């Protein structure tokens, strides 16, 4: 225990890097998921094809491969050197964004046709329909899976350690080499990862509650902070 307490500042520094990478990755993945997900619901063949290519390519290649390519191949091919953190954010963002795009597409398509017809009857344009009606309703359905994907993304940021960024994993590795305390060194990092994930899960539940309230589905368990600790529905499968 003393071992960990002494080195806590170092772990927290590493965890902070991990949190930053996660936040950056989620921001990028979210934008990409929304853009390509919405593109995938357009009626034109070309936009749909663009969406499919993005999804299949970046879902099909491992985040680590994308990151190595960004970090090592890109500088040689273009002469442009990406900072390690950026390479990592790009890699996890592109990868999880592709999963997210499928979620967005599915959630938009799941909005009842009758709702879309009502927007036609009110003469809304496509962008008004999306902004005012379709996306707000699809949002509640996207959130649980977005939550799982965000955890996956957070875990995936650990790969930056392989290109020399001092994240939480790198700190653990450094501790082990410095002290020989393998179990403590790694358990320290794993517990911090676990805690980050739990905070994220809590945050997502808050968002889910808010989204459901906005749709007039008020949680039956009375709400409150305690209610957050219980999962709203048994989460099926994982994010992948």
């Amino acid at each position, binding site marked *: 225990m003393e071992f960990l307490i002494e080195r806590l500042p170092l772990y927290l520094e590493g965890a902070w890097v991990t949190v930053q990478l996660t936040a950056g990755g989620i921001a990028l993945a979210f934008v990409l998921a929304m853009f390509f997900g919405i593109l995938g619901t357009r009626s034109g063949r070309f936009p749909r094809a663009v969406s499919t290519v993005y999804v299949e390519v970046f879902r099909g290649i491992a985040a680590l491969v994308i990151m190595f390519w960004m970090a090592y191949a890109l500088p040689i091919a273009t002469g442009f050197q990406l900072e390690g953190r950026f390479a990592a954010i790009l890699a996890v963002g592109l990868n999880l964004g592709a999963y997210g795009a499928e979620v967005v597409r599915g959630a938009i398509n799941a909005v009842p046709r*009758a*709702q879309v*017809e*009502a927007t*036609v*009857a*009110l*003469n*809304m*344009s*496509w962008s*008004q329909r999306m902004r*005012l*009606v379709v996306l*707000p*309703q699809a949002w509640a359905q996207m959130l649980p899976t977005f939550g799982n994907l965000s955890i996956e993304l957070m875990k995936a940021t650990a790969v930056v350690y392989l290109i020399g960024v001092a994240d939480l994993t790198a700190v653990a590795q450094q501790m082990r080499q410095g002290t020989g305390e393998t179990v403590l060194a790694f358990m320290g990092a794993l517990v911090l990862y676990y805690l980050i994930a739990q905070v994220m899960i809590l945050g997502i539940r808050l968002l889910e509650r808010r989204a459901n309230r*906005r*749709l*007039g*589905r008020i949680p039956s368990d009375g709400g409150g902070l305690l209610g957050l600790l219980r999962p709203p529905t048994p989460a099926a499968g994982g994010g992948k």
Partner: protein
Amino acid sequence: MPPSDNRAAPAAADTDTPDTGSLIVFDQVVKRFGDLTVLDHLDFSVAPGERVTLIGPSGSGKTTILRLLMTLEKVTEGTILVGGEPFSHMRRGDRLVPASESYLRARRKTIGMVFQQFNLFPNMTVRKNLTEAPVHVLGLGKEEANARAEELLDLVGLSDKIDAHPTQLSGGQQQRVAIARALAMRPEILLLDEVTSALDPELVAGVLDVLRTVAETTDITMLCVTHEMGFARDVSNRVLMFDQGRIAEAGAPEEIFGDPKEERTKAFLRSVLDNGY
């Protein structure tokens, strides 16, 4: 109230040349879904301010007519004119080409629709349901849209529900909000698609009362698909009996309900009455 003119009685199923006084003209309209022909070379027209009720067995194409007018479906053949402008197609030079989305939006401006299942937006309060489209589509100011919403909610008797969520309302209340929402767009034509069919029997009267008020206090042209024969008799100038994608019989409500000529009409009216409508 504008006249229902002299077009009431004759065999409307026959082709007649669209006259210029009509607001809505269907000219040889065919609608097919795959192999199924829903509308079969349909001709009819509606004068401004007229209230037309469409009756007939399910699958006879009544709802499809409303959906075509709302541009929720596209015609397979033929032309629809609204206010003299082609609806299913647009003019390019002297040819008609399939309508673009922006062209359709311009045409849709004058038309509103109320659906069987209400289709209120669950992500908005009643107020938002009534103001979002006026603000964003018509470009009304917030206050003006709000005032209009309050006025209309008063008309449908739901002023106290303005900040409620649709899920907190009964079916009948939701449908009254949906009527107010359609009226908030100030349509010239209002399409009513079986607006009481999804309601519990005790809630039907409230909705029909609202529609009677709308009919009495405005000159909106109304096309109404319904099984409520009493309502049809009270409100409409003309009743069209549909069967298999064609107009089987057309006439003033007294004629159709009091003295139907066609065997199909008689059979249909009998079955509707037997079912307790």
